């Protein structure tokens, strides 16, 4: 394999505490190395060099994403590009086609992306889309928070059985981590109901979201999985919901991470922007980002990603079925719902975050405040909960707002209800501007560590995968806000596991993308196996033998992470 030497760039790598030093980065056989003998030399003088970025939470593949694509032809208007050379045609803005998804992430310097919610019964669909997404490594989180097995085991506090079931499900769906979406609430949605508080009982199953969350933390740590539980809490999107969020985060108190992957957190709360609202109704809607961020700052065993609102027309989609119904009642746009037997549900509704609407402005402020009030950027990650708060292609714009107070002020001035946005939030008083080192923490080192993948991704230490992005951005120069956005929209060079993907801004290869999944080994558990047989016999509409995802046509290039949880 070829060798490369990226010379004289400004290197940002929090894993080695390198903060903009002018250094060389060497690549050999797909890995970062100390030095190389006969490399192809790339002159990165005056440019910024970082590891490839990771997206810890994005809805990019699977049934609800495809519902979004299929039921929104308008999303493709005026943005299609034809096939060119080896590159496939692209289309779509908030829910791009799989090919555009891969290309667009690569163009921004992203090399690893996690699909945030995989309904287990639809695992094949998720993997087919992942297969058709070029370049980037991907994994998918199966959803567990409303799964009947989990509800029944945890009602009786059977952690070991829950863990054995998780191990089985991760294996048969080729999943990566334990995802919870509106725990209990989505099962309640089977009857058109919801669980808004962590103490609300789930109909019939007689368990509370609190018990589900704590039980799954315990099962996750029993298994020692690479990632912690990945939680979308209850009561998303409602005024005054920050108290529910604090109640939820407090459930992690007292738990300690147990794993061999260097992960310290036991709970990752995702898109916390949607969960940090004050007020009692839309009219007195306000930001409670400070309260939430302060709590996260104090608790070392939780991490968050933000879910920045980008002020675009987008497509919301979540396994939080009752929320999407609530949203369609609110904005009266078309609504798709997809309940999944024994497991979960999903909803999809288009949404317009308009700068003319005061609530959208405050939501925009909440996201930025969460990040700007955060003290440990290793535990606060950049996402837009793509496509819920905005498309992932807007990450460079979010970086502009995070890195420039001037950019934020310009946006505040542009709001129609500017005064009200300012009075209901604290964004106008914040003068913090994130540094490139902090950006590298939010987008590289941080997510890699929380995902338990810091032995592969997130840094430029010799031995790590050679995922390297070079941006045409000189950190020593003054930049206008829009220049930040421009520079981070298009990498100059990109390598994925040592393969050159982008050279001089042009995509030249589809790389060698991998599907990451976790295979935990547990003790034989006849009871759980019997329960599985029983449920398939009586309640599923597919047979047990037709459930497992097998075959190269779903996962042509798997990367399996083995976890030994036998006792």
């Amino acid at each position, binding site marked *: 394999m070829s060798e490369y030497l990226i010379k004289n760039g400004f290197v940002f790598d929090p894993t080695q505490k390198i903060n903009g030093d002018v250094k060389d980065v060497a690549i050999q056989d797909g890995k970062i190395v100390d030095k190389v003998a006969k490399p192809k030399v790339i002159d990165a003088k005056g440019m910024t060099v970082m590891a490839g970025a990771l997206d810890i939470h994005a809805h990019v593949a699977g049934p609800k994403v495809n519902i979004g694509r299929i039921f929104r032809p308008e999303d*493709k208007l005026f943005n299609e590009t034809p096939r060119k050379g080896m590159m496939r045609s692209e289309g779509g803005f908030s829910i791009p086609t799989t090919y555009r998804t891969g290309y667009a992430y690569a163009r921004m310097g992203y090399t690893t992306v996690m699909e945030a919610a995989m309904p287990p019964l639809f695992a094949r669909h998720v993997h*087919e889309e992942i297969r058709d997404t070029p370049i980037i490594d991907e994994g998918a989180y199966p959803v567990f928070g409303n799964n009947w097995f989990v509800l029944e085991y945890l009602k009786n506090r059977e952690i070991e059985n829950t863990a054995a079931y998780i191990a089985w499900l991760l294996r048969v769906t080729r999943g990566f981590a334990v995802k919870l979406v509106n725990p209990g609430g989505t099962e309640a949605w089977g009857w058109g109901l919801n669980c808004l508080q962590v103490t609300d009982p789930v109909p019939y199953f007689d368990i509370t979201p609190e018990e589900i969350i704590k039980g799954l933390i315990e099962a996750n740590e029993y298994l020692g999985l690479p990632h912690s539980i990945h939680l979308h809490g209850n009561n998303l999107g409602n005024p005054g919901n920050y108290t529910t969020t604090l109640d939820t985060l407090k459930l992690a108190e007292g738990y300690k991470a147990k794993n061999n992957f260097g992960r310290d957190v036991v709970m990752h709360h995702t898109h916390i922007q949607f969960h940090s609202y004050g007020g009692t109704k839309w009219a007195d809607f306000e930001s409670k980002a400070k309260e939430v961020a302060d709590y996260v700052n104090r608790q070392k065993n939780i991490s968050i990603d933000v879910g920045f609102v980008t002020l675009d027309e987008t497509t919301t989609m979540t396994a939080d079925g009752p929320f999407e119904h609530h949203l369609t009642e609110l904005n009266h746009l078309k609504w798709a719902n997809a309940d999944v037997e024994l497991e979960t549900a999903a909803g999809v509704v288009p949404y317009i975050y308009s700068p003319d609407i005061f609530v959208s402005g405050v939501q925009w402020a909440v996201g930025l405040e969460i990040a700007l009030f955060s003290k440990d950027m290793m535990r606060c990650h950049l996402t837009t909960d793509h496509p819920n708060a905005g498309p992932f292609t807007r990450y460079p714009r979010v970086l502009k707002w995070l890195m420039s107070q001037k950019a934020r002020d310009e946006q505040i001035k542009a709001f129609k209800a500017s005064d009200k946005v300012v009075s209901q939030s604290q964004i106008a008083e914040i003068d913090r501007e994130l540094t490139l080192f902090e950006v590298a923490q939010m987008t590289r080192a941080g997510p890699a560590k929380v995902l338990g993948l810091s032995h592969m991704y997130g840094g430029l230490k010799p031995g790590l995968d050679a995922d390297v992005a070079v941006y045409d951005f000189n950190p020593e120069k003054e930049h206008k806000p829009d220049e930040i956005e421009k520079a981070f929209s298009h990498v100059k060079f990109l390598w994925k596991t040592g393969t050159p993907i982008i050279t001089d801004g042009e995509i030249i290869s589809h790389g060698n993308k991998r599907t990451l999944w976790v295979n935990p080994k547990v003790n034989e558990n006849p009871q759980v196996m019997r329960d599985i047989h029983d449920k398939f016999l009586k309640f599923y*509409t597919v047979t047990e033998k037709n459930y497992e995802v097998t075959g190269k046509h779903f996962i042509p290039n798997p990367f399996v992470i083995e976890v030994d949880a036998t006792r």
Partner: protein
Amino acid sequence: MTKTITDVICPFCGTLCDDIEVVVSDDGKKIVEVMNACAIGYEKFHHSQATDRATRPRMQQADGSYKEVSYDEAVEYTAQMFAKSKKTLMYGWSSTNCEAQSVGHEIAEICGSVVDNTATVCHGTTLIAVQDVGIPSCTLGEIKNRADRILFWGCNPAHAHPRHMSRYSIFPRGFFTGKGQHSRKVVVVDPRPTDTSKMADYYFQVEQGRDYELLQAFRAALKHEWLPDVVAGIPKERIYEGADMLKAGRFGIIFFGMGVTQTLSKNHNIDAAIMLTKDLNEYTKFNIMPMRGHYNVTGSGEVLGWQFGFPYAVDISRGFARYNPGDTTSNDLLMRGDVDSVFVIASDPGAHFPWTSVKKISELPSVAVDPHFTPTTEICKLHVPVAFVGIEVGGNAYRMDNVPIDTRKVVDPPEGMLTDEQFLEKVLHRVKELKGVH
């Protein structure tokens, strides 16, 4: 000794039953017996065993007779046809696996073809309605486990999806529906009494073509608004009664079929049905689901969806995808004379399209890829027989509720036969050579 293969997926209709048992001969070459399948599924498996099936491509001669040709010659003819055409119609896709569909889409992208599936004469109108107003839906297991209100509108599963009622809708005993059919109220709306309507607790014999009025009347009746004495042939008292019965359920589902998608008002019927479902969610839990026909027509829509963003009628003649039903749909293209060649795979437009379209196909350079002899294979210039997906080769398929199920291979195809995917791969390879792309 014969061998029994269990958990086989039936490659016939959108019900996609996955509990078929197939007994094969000890050399694994012949199907001896098929169990659990419905009459249609049983025939599909046995049909693959016919001794008179075509096993090699056949080229039409000037006098209308057919001459056997090799697969290589068939690949060459097909690739040349694609390469020389300005716009090929690639129609069908609904009875093959998703892998074959993917390969076909790349050919379309390179050659600038139109990809359309059987939804164009089936549930395409549903897809238009979904794009208008969304669709609250669920998997079939949710119905089995929860539903106590089952409504069949303009569909007749007793004949078209024979095992649907026992596996998913009327009869099964699920988690919250332990009494099976006794825990459910079944409603059928159809202009004609059918074998499905015989099973209904409530049968509404709607006047033909008046479904839209009746659907909107139900919406009004939910709110106890005023109705004329009779709507679509149904007295208003029965409509109010029906609406109250639906509202009183815990979990309901509307299944609908060709009776509403391809009759007067078309997509507007489905708009109204979806809005009725949405309205019902104000009172209880309700979902709606199209009764998709071919076993993988849903899959074709899904693969087109993630690769191009549209579920059918995808025109890639400019290198990127455009979608405009009525313009980029198969029959419109054929009747307008907008395509200069036709590639048909895994479906039979010869039997189902209007004769004006069929005549156009017969006049153009054309290829039909199909394991059977069909009216289509008899009018196309080239017939390429292939292995039966789901019997002689596996591959992914999507059930009517979008659940993906990987079909199984149970026996080998006759020696030397290609699968859809293999044939398309060869064509793709040759097309790339002809077009000079990598």
